[in-house]
């Protein structure tokens, strides 16, 4: 069972990865799709924050 701390750290890594992908995106729709996922993961990270 993954601890909250580990899950928080994994979420932060995923946020960083998706942000990199969004920044490198040329298609605006792809960029928006990735950025919205980042928004959602940030909301999750805040919820997980100890």
């Amino acid at each position, binding site marked *: 069972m993954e601890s909250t701390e580990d899950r928080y750290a994994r979420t932060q890594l995923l946020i960083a990865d998706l942000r990199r992908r969004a920044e490198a995106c040329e298609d605006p729709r792809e960029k928006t799709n990735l950025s919205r*996922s980042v*928004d959602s993961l*940030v*909301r999750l990270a805040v919820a997980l924050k100890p």
Partner: protein
Amino acid sequence: MITSLEGLLEQHARAALRISGADQTAWSGQIVEAGEGILGLAHWDGTLHLDRACILEPLRDLYHRGGEPRTEAELVQYREALVTLLHEQSHFLGPAGASQEAARAAFTLPGSRALEEGVAELWAHDHLNDYIRELGIDKVAPGIDKVRSEPSYAAFVPAVRLFTDDLDRQAGLPPGETLRLLNRQTAEGQWPQAVALIYDSSRLPHLVPPDQAPAAQLHLEQALRGSFRGLELYEPFPRGFATSRSHAAGTRLLTALHKELTTAEHHHTPTPHPTQITLTPPTLPAAPGPATPSTPADSPHSALHHAFAGVAPPTSPSTSPPNAPPQHTSAATPARQLEP
């Protein structure tokens, strides 16, 4: 009539509340300019974070050029800003008494994020024109209700659409009603609401003993949560791929869900007690002499021998008929995700 961005921001949450039919919004009334590459964020403290370039500036332009003709690209840009605004307000909606603390805790549970984001995005897109008309934006930017924009959250939206449409059909609800019901819930209530709809539209309430109903619903919820959690895997992928994978996962999930319900219904359906066959050898009178046939064709035991011819004794005790479904789905069975 709203004539400025400030006026829109003042009215937008009440309009979302009106068109959703939700009891309350957790929005604190505060809007913060978003940082760190965020487009829109409904923060757990009740503040709304909006990106300047993608949300606030297009909406300022919307009123700055009120009534002027716009290009289709400009109208689509306004729509995208407005749908993000409505999506974020959807996160704040809830039933009377719902708390952000409980919603925040529930949002971290498996499958909560995929369902909540999918519901918010689909509902916001489906009801964007209602929102636009409610706020009088169709008068400010004529033609805005005629152009189309694509949903984001490609990993979640197709599966949530299939799931909620199926619930509408199973529960005999008008199209879109499940989505509306789930949109009025916070993360705390969304999965219980969805599972209650599934459960109540099956035969299970008539078959499952009342004391076992909560466990049966919990089993279903855990299995569905596991399947929705799996959708997160598709988030980093391009939209087309994520969309097709989400659609395929949603289809598999529904197939597995219906199979699970059918199995559970069979499991709880009372069946006639299986016939017990005991092959007790008949007590035959002692043979009067050697080498006589044990059951001559005309003996009183002949019919018994013919009747049991070919019947093998049971190899193990069984209380189920041969075609009975596997006996699981009880609370004691560990939940598995429904996606095969």
